[in-house]
């Protein structure tokens, strides 16, 4: 049981680290390297492209991956218990 809890918590924290980490770094990057803000991609300034568009599909993908991994972990746990 404890190992299940630990595995799930590790999975949750790594998803958060991978998604929220870079997001949280953005304001700092914009402050420390103001030049980055002015970069323009396809006519949109980089901050707008990242915050208004790119972030959303990334969140959905992260959520989908997480849900699949969490289900796999649970299935392994069920198999383990039922074999014993």
């Amino acid at each position, binding site marked *: *049981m404890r190992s*299940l*809890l630990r595995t*799930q*918590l590790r*999975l*949750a924290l790594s*998803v*958060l680290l991978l*998604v*929220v980490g870079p*997001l*949280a770094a953005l*304001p*700092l990057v*914009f*402050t420390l390297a*103001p030049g980055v*803000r*002015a970069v323009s991609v396809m006519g949109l*300034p980089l*901050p*707008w492209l990242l*915050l*208004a*568009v790119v*972030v*959303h*599909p990334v*969140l*959905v993908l*992260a*959520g*989908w991956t*997480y*849900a699949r991994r*969490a*289900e796999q972990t*649970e*299935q392994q*746990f*069920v198999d383990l*218990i*039922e074999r014993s």
Partner: protein
Amino acid sequence: MSPAVGWVAVALVSVVTLAIGAFGLRISRTTSDFYVASRSVGPLWNASAIGGEYLSAASFLGVAGLVLAFGADMLWFPVGFATGYLVLLVLVAAPLRRSGAYTIPDFAEARLESPVVRRLASGLVVVVGWLYLLPQLQGAGLTLGTVTGAPAWVGAVLVAAVVVLNVVSGGMRSITFVQAFQYWLKLTALLVPAVVLVLVWRRDGSPSPATAGPGWLLPLAGGDPTDLYQTYSLMVATFLGTMGLPHVLVRFYTNPDGRAARRTTVIVLGLLAVFYLLPPVYGSLGRLYAPDLVARGRADAIVLELPGRMLDGLGGDLLGALVTAGAFAAFLSTSSGLTVSVAGALSQDVLTRLPLPRERRLGGVAAFRIAAVLALMVPLAIALSTQRLAVASSVGLAFAVAASTFCPLLVLGIWWRPLTDVGAVAGLLAGGLASGGAVVLVIAEPDRAGWLGALLAQPAAWTVPTAFAVMLAGSWLTPGRVAPGVDRTMVRLHAPEALDLDRGSWQPR
């Protein structure tokens, strides 16, 4: 737009909402139907309902208004509103569903086996709920005033009346259908005009809104360290506050099991992703076609006014009516969800415990109905008597209080076995008093400058760590008070339903 068109749009949404509610009424009979729709709702319905309930006045009107007025820094609002769902998904969705609790107070009682924590959590549900209802009602007043010229109180009273009728007659079951309908209405109402308006903008030669200067176009352009603090504090509040919003959590109990709760949340993330692409479009176009709204302090009305500004005649009228209908759907759906949650807390922990003689004691359903009326009366009174904060800022404060109280309770309760009732109470009080105090000071005096103003307007960055620290320290100091059934509760929270295990005998009331 002519007032008649606005009235028709508002009346239509209200009538359809009540009609779907009445349809749900026929299948809603028992107390558990009232709270959680008997957990028999499919995942897409449920995800639409969650989305419908979550996309409030702040998302529909407020975000576009803030982008119009302040530019790139405000893009963090929609990002935070969406990311909050990812955090909720990975940290609480499945375990919370498996706990079998209907509400946060139920969860607190099941996990910590303490009626004191339960009652404190109920009190906080009411506070957060009222704080979040306030901007919904004020937004309704603003909307109706903008499209019909009616005085501000009319819209607030109208929304309150429709919500009370709906909640009192059908409870959660009817609310689930209404909410699901509202999501699709809100999406259509924002998407269709946005497409048309972007085409008009292209016909006009695609002018750039950037002429407003770099302060609007680029984030953190002022170089003021309080801006950076406010951005981070907003991130903390929205990322961690979403899981603590009472009307969001109650939805998770309508999933059949923990796995379905996760899958539903992923669908919700998709629905939110589509929706949140749109408000920045309105904010940016507003910069070109309606910049005067900012100076007049009416930036929140941009979504409503833009179609009429960019299109003449019937086209502008029809699209204006559509966004008005969407805005009303936003007020109705979020207010309904909040009212159900606040009424649940009030009826279970206050009204059914009144020291009345046995024959006059209130039954579950009767208490719920009375509580629903009470739940709306208080914020309505406040909405009618205070000066208006920007819609999204007051919603931001509700997120900050939720993040400073329920987030530590849920996260530590689910993942940290040594949490004790004493630690939980201390943490809830510390986080609640700190963030609640900041809210009171901001509502009393909204325009404080400098660091004090920033710390109060966006308190989450210091109140959330405080709450976590107090909750951890309180639990460390009272190791003997770990709930006796904690091991069984942890099994219940984390073990897949497929396993036949001892999950304890706790049942929600």
